[in-house]
């Protein structure tokens, strides 16, 4: 199926050139990295840019490294690169687990983490993990650089804090200071590739503190401070999970759509929260299923 909309294509070799194009074209420019969302939108006339800016030649967007407790993921790093990275698998296992649930190999070989959060669909698989690891989104424009906490990044369905003249250069995650177990539970219609109908991610620490975040259960992915408040300081148990589940219901606002009903999402949010936390705790103690296994509900 051809793309009928017409646009110019540029592939800047350096950042100045790229930023200049974005400052000139603003909303009418679209960044192309993996293209796995953009090209679908071009084909379906959902995007009609005047210029497509291929950012893959920008060296500033490369790089996947952990320094001083901060993981830097360049904007052109693909999900396949994340999955292949020992650092991600070892130190940020929830991001690793979530990355494995994004589409399929042939898509992940091009699709980037930065692209995933720029598309900003409520079901973005990577978002709950980024929330758990206190991620910040690094942006750049001719006006300068910004660091945007992931909590402020998503502003609504398919909406972000990115300004028209800006591009995302990287995402940075903070290594939790202590040992942890984690999990990303995803609700899908089957075990194959699917968009999340709900996602819960959790980290569990030896001191009985927890971090919890969700996607696809509200207009934007988010951490769950109320759930964490209920959990923190206590050992997991049936009663605690019931209370945490109740707290979760106050933090999510799922809708009914073609993929799932609100009723089922509410039900599953609680079920997944319990299972996700139990798995995270089990993994903390070296038990439970391996990362990347048994996390599709």
């Amino acid at each position, binding site marked *: 199926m051809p793309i*009928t909309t017409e646009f*110019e294509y540029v592939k800047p070799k350096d950042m100045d050139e790229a930023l200049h194009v974005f400052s000139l074209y603003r909303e009418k420019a679209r960044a192309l990295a993996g*293209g796995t969302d953009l090209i679908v939108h071009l084909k379906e006339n959902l995007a009609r840019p005047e210029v497509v800016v291929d950012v893959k030649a920008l060296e500033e967007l490369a790089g996947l490294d952990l320094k001083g407790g901060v993981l830097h993921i360049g904007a052109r790093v693909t999900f396949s690169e994340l999955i292949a990275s020992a650092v991600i698998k070892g130190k940020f296992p929830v991001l690793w687990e979530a990355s494995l649930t994004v589409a399929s*190999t042939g*898509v992940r070989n091009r699709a980037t983490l930065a692209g995933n959060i720029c598309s900003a669909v409520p079901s973005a698989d990577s978002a709950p993990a980024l929330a758990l690891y206190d991620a910040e989104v690094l942006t750049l424009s001719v006006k300068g650089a910004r660091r945007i906490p992931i909590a402020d990044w998503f502003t609504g369905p398919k909406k972000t804090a990115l300004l028209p003249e800006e591009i995302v250069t990287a995402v940075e995650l903070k290594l939790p200071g202590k040992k942890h177990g984690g999990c990303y539970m995803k609700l899908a219609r089957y075990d194959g590739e699917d968009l999340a109908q709900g996602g819960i991610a959790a980290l569990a620490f030896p001191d009985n503190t927890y971090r919890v975040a969700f996607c696809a259960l509200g207009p934007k992915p988010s951490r769950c401070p109320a759930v964490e408040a209920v959990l923190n300081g206590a050992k997991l148990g049936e009663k605690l999970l019931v209370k945490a589940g109740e707290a979760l219901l106050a933090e999510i606002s799922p809708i009914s759509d073609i993929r799932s009903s609100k009723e089922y999402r509410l039900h599953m949010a609680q079920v997944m929260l319990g299972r996700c936390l139990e798995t995270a705790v089990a993994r903390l103690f070296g038990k439970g299923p391996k990362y990347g296994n048994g996390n599709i509900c």
Partner: protein
Amino acid sequence: MKPHLIQFTLNGEKVSLTVEPSDVLLDVLRGRLGIKSPKVGCDRGDCGTCTVLMDGKTVRSCLALAVEAHGADIVTLEGANSRKWTQKLQKKFHEKNAFQCGFCAPGVILSATELLEKDPNPTAHEIKEAIAGNLCRCTGYEPIVEAIEETVKGK
């Protein structure tokens, strides 16, 4: 719109041609370069039948602009036919009557080739993961998975 002259390697041969920015790689391969093994299936990255190897990695050629191929090394099944793992896989696929209509076969074979070139001893789960993005409506996948497993075991 400004056309672009692109040059890339296609199945080991240098090609150069002029494309529009909106031209999709799959359409250029099929329509302009006579390469027919990547098929049009869903045109939005869901089915995997348009799979090609781009710099050694499987990508959806329906989700790539042709201009992005500039400077790349692109291999389709026509070119992969001479690769070691592709040939081993094909032998097994043939033996086991692994495909029916055959429309998904080029994509499946390239996905399996990518996997085995990276890791000749994948687990059963990794095999499935590698071809999970290649939809097949005929076979129920069983003979395909078995053929890859047997290729790995060198049976």
